[in-house]
């Protein structure tokens, strides 16, 4: 049993969903995504038992490209994030009616396929292909099932597509260059490369462009808010929950170990950029009028911190970044789902048109509150574990980084609570807010449970990722 099974299952799932027809599509998709989740848990067990679950096979002889899927702790953690969030996201969409549902759900599974592939690929080209492949489904999901004015949406989505593609193409050039040097794109061969400092810098920058746009790090973030706003919530969840983690994962997996000298030399610049994102994102989020846009900027702030953590090149930084990635994945999905729940009832995403929901649905309020609190990294939630570790690593580099990055806990609380106040509190709203349905409640409860469980007991994840991060760290420090 190896990891390729997962990918096959997802792909088969996508086709099956498409063939199942509009009525059954959502259920088939859920079934397959759950199957994949189960499968990945089984794989995790195999992995923990020390079995080899990699899959490496020659694919193209000239140039020498392998179909290499490798799973270490880091990949598995990200894979689990993907496979756990996918059924959640699919399940969360059960309250909505989508036209042409079969394509919709098939695209979701296809996207999960591409993202899982990105996390597993151990060959540069294969990785790149999955990376690019994940763009297409989200492009269509955002374009066809999105909301708001069609023209505006089109502009936003196309901008997003071209922008991210632009970044990643430079990564491709870097990969080709690396191929010239290494004669192979297998990650182990790339790690072994002995590049000069200037080569490393250029490669680092090429990678950075791709990742900075995907993550996004300011000032490459301008696509984000609009797309999050315009995409259907499912798309936004996929984007923010999993897809932007691809960028962060790639920083750790590809960028840092391949070009460690550059990473070390310009560490401060990139940390500073990440932290600037934290502050900037938080401040911009303060006065957003659209709920989804606000969440988008909050996401910008959070990933800025994660990126800063990753660029510290310390074990704490990397570990904190990974933990925070997973935590943020769950929280942000939950938050966007909350926005969707409100949208289903009020038919608006404008904050000023909300308010007074708490007296109508206390259950929903509590769950939303918990998500908000998790998002501002209240201790005992999973986010705190990540944020604490990241901030700690920043403080080891320079205490000012920690202080500036730490403003997230102040500003984050400010905008999140302000949002919560205007969305949920106040005089009872005149519009009717039906209580959350079982489906919605279940989704929220699962997310909340995950956040609390790993907030108090992150050890399984820490144990899973630490060896591989240590391995990467030795690669970074190899010369």
């Amino acid at each position, binding site marked *: 049993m190896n990891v390729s099974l997962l990918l096959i299952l997802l792909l088969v799932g996508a086709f099956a969903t498409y063939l199942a027809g509009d009525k059954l599509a959502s259920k088939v998709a859920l079934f397959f995504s759950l199957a994949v989740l189960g499968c990945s848990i089984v794989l995790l067990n195999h992995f923990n038992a020390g079995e080899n679950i990699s899959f490496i096979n020659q694919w193209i002889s000239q140039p020498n490209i392998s179909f290499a899927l490798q799973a270490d702790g880091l990949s598995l953690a990200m894979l689990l994030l993907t496979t756990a969030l996918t059924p959640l996201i699919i399940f969360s969409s059960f309250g909505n009616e989508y036209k042409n549902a079969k394509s919709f759900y098939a695209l979701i599974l296809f996207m999960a396929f591409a993202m899982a592939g990105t996390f597993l690929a151990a060959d540069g080209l294969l990785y790149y292909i999955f990376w690019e492949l994940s763009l297409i489904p989200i492009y269509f999901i955002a374009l066809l099932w999105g909301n708001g004015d069609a023209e505006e949406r089109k502009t936003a989505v196309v901008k997003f597509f*071209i922008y991210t593609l632009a970044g990643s193409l430079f990564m491709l050039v870097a990969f080709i260059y690396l191929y010239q040097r290494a004669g192979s794109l297998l990650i182990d061969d790339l790690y072994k490369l002995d590049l000069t400092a200037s080569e490393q810098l250029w490669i680092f920058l090429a990678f950075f462009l791709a990742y900075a746009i995907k993550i996004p790090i300011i000032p490459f973030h301008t696509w984000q808010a609009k797309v999050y706003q315009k995409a259907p919530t499912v798309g936004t969840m996929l984007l923010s929950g999993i897809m932007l983690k691809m960028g962060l994962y790639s920083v750790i997996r590809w960028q840092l170990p391949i070009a460690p000298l550059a990473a070390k030399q310009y560490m401060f610049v990139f940390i500073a950029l990440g932290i600037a994102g934290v502050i900037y994102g938080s*401040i911009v989020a303060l*006065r957003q009028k659209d709920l989804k846009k606000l969440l988008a900027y909050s996401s910008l702030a959070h990933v800025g911190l994660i990126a800063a953590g990753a660029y510290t090149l310390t074990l704490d930084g990397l570990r904190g970044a990974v933990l925070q990635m997973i935590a943020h994945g769950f929280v942000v999905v939950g938050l966007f789902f909350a926005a969707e729940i409100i949208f289903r009832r009020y038919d608006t995403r404008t904050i000023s048109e909300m308010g007074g929901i708490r007296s109508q649905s206390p259950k929903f309020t509590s769950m939303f509150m918990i998500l908000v609190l998790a998002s501002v990294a209240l201790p005992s939630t999973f986010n705190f574990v990540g944020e604490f570790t990241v901030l700690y690593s920043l403080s080891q580099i320079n*205490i000012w980084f920690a202080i500036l990055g730490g403003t997230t806990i102040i500003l984050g*609380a400010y905008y999140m609570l302000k949002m919560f106040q205007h969305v949920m509190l*106040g005089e009872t709203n005149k519009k009717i807010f039906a209580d959350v349905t079982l489906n919605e409640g279940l989704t929220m409860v699962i997310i909340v449970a995950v956040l609390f469980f790993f907030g108090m*007991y992150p050890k399984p994840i820490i144990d899973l990722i630490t060896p591989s991060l240590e391995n990467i760290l030795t690669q970074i420090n190899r010369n």
Partner: protein
Amino acid sequence: MDTNLALVLLLTPLLGFLINVFFGKKLGKTFSGIVGTLSVVVSFAVTLYFFGYITVAKQPIQIILFDWISISNFNLSFGLLLDQLSILWLLFVTGIGSLIHLYSISYMHDDEKMHTFFAYLNLFVFFMITLVIGSNLLVMFIGWEGVGLCSYLLIGFWHKNQEYNDAAKKAFIMNRIGDLGLLIGIFILGMLFSTLDFTTLKTAISGATNLNSYWLGVAAFALFIGACGKSAQIPLYTWLPDAMAGPTPVSALIHAATMVTAGIFMISRLNFLFDLTPEVQNIIAIIGAITALVAATIGLVQNDIKKVLAYSTVSQLGLMFLALGLGAYQVAIFHVVTHAFFKACLFLGSGSVIHALGGEQDMRKMGGLKKAMPITFMTMLVASLAIAGIFPFAGFWSKDEILITAFEHNIVLWVIGSVASIMTAFYMFRLMYLTFFKEFRGTEDQKHHLHESPSLITAPLIILAVLSFIGGLISLPKNSWLNEYLAPIFRKVTEEEHTLGTFEYGLMAIALAGAFIGIGIAYSKYIKQNSVPEEDSKITGISKVLYNKYYVDEAYDVLFVKPINALSGFFRDYIETSISALVFGLAKVTNELSFQGKKLHNGSIGFYLFAFVLGLCAIISYLFLAQ
């Protein structure tokens, strides 16, 4: 056994919380109140057991539950530490907590969300216990933030009122500013000593030979900022008066007796650290003294009964910080305990008044309640005397110790502390006079309904009044049980035992005299002259400045809130759009190029061939002439 009991101690409030959250509505109001109260009472009982244990065994109990967070240079486990300090805190947290829960059963009975209220209260107790018994800084931090959260939830309990929500938000954010400081302190400590565990930290610091005093100072200062946030010291105090928006029991429990003392707890916990950083201690003392004075001055003119108590709380906390800064931890703790008694009593009493008046909090519309509410009056009088520092009430002893310590260190601090005390006496009795004496100034309707509160309310009041009266006994000069009890925690506790000479008696007398002066002024103004504070609009001069709290809120608004919001608008409207325009600009440029290029492709064969020939010539001449 100990582990299980400790878990019972910790988890019963959580259980109460869960029951109230999930089944609160079905249980019915009374029952949910009982569940909430019982869960705290159980904790209290367990605490008593531990108290007994610790007094006998004198050995702290340390429990490690599970590994929590891994940091590269150390592991953080989720552990509990039950030593003298934490058990002392637990005693009044759960003890007063039980009383206030009891009180709330009656007080909140008319509120439709009573089960929610109890849920939050239980949650608060749970987090407070976590804060107190956490074995390392980070577990403490869970509680630290958790109580902040509960404070937020309870201040905004009446969530339909956006002003209350604003207050709640403000409290949370102010606290978070402090929390950042605390985190920074934690980071530095972790970096320096590779541990955050209190016991190992203590051995590490005391055992270390060449300490980096700079970083140690920074750490201590950062931690102090955290304490400032939680314990409402300058400059982070403004949230506490606003926090009175919450139900009165909350004010009593969280914003007077327990949560706001967390800062003092933390500093006492880390006394070994602060002892090594005298500069920071000086800062603490100065900040504490200034806070005491400033808050007291503001308290002089407030008309909202709870606001007066709130500023009084800030002022008293300032005094406690003054003591902390002077290294007299046990004195500060003594004041914490007595303050918990009388301030809780005052708040609950004011709650009783407010309850009777159907929600009225403005003292200008009260008066003459003495007859209608005798028990409330009596208990509040006792508490007021205690806070004013009248012999032999509890406050006298604790406050006096602080002032004596201050006098020993720095006369200026003593003067400030004394002035603050005099003011305290004044505004407390201003409150008493305005509320209970003379004629009732409210509406007829209210007058009609005036009544003494039910026994569920008065019983806690009486207990607390008694405690306020006798609380001083735990640390009498010369014969301090408290100092002895806390001896294992504080290094210098024995050295600093006061000698009780004439000098000290003199100071006591001065303090007592000051208190009487304050009461006297209040008496002459509000009983003799029978004056009632003016309408808001008529307040002028200094009192206007004071009434508006020195305009600190406004200043903060102008200095921080408005700029950040303006910046947000600026970022949103200009920076975002211009970065976006930059990206779009590239697209526009290419598009424009395309448009211009279309003119080049004009459909004329002649031009096409001309380009062909030009290209040919260019290539040929480059290849064969330019070489």
